[in-house]
């Protein structure tokens, strides 16, 4: 299984209410762009939102399986707004 799939499934399992999108930024399967949309982020400072997601990826980061993660966290509402902007049809 690729790390992209691995991280995708791991986050989806740990954060069942979340929409998780993982993208390989470099084609090397170890620099990942991760978008997590969840209402668990509502009212939490950005730092806490990132800490929460990164805590689930700690093992992969420690083992250096994943070298870099570009993380974006949003609420479900802003996720759907983003979708509308990206695809106005």
């Amino acid at each position, binding site marked *: 299984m690729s790390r992209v799939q691995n991280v995708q499934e791991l986050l989806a399992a740990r954060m069942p209410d979340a929409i998780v999108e993982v993208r390989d930024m470099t084609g090397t399967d170890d*620099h990942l762009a991760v978008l997590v949309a969840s209402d668990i982020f509502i009212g939490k400072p950005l730092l806490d939102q990132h800490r929460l997601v990164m805590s689930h990826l700690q093992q992969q980061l420690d083992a250096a399986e994943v070298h*870099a993660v570009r993380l974006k966290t949003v609420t479900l509402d802003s996720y759907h707004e983003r979708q509308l902007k990206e695809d106005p049809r």
Partner: protein
Amino acid sequence: MNDESPRAHPFRIASHPAAVTGNGRPVGELEPDAPPLERVKRMVGSAGVFLFIKGTPEEPLCGFSANVLRIIDSLGVPYKTFDVLSDESIRVAGKEYADWPTFPQVYVRGEFIGGNDIVSELAAEGGLRLLVEGHEHG
């Protein structure tokens, strides 16, 4: 946020831009023999904005460090940096102190704000300037 192998760099705690303490020259720590966590605590509190980066403001050695330097530079406020590649004990203690696994790390008034992603996002939303100028918390 990637961890290359440590590289040999002269110890330095640089002040930038040139107008602030030390006129842009490396500024020595008061007690470099203190325990690493204590040194980290003193360093992050030694400037309104403090950055742990890889490399120096003149020569950042990581794209993420270069990016936060560019962002902080654009605010036009004085800041200090420390090159974590120059001191393995500070590199380890910095991760522990912030409870954050990677560098760069940005502190405002001694409080950990985040790494590249968070600082980029705060900057894009305008929140970083408010935070640095003391109008807003967290």
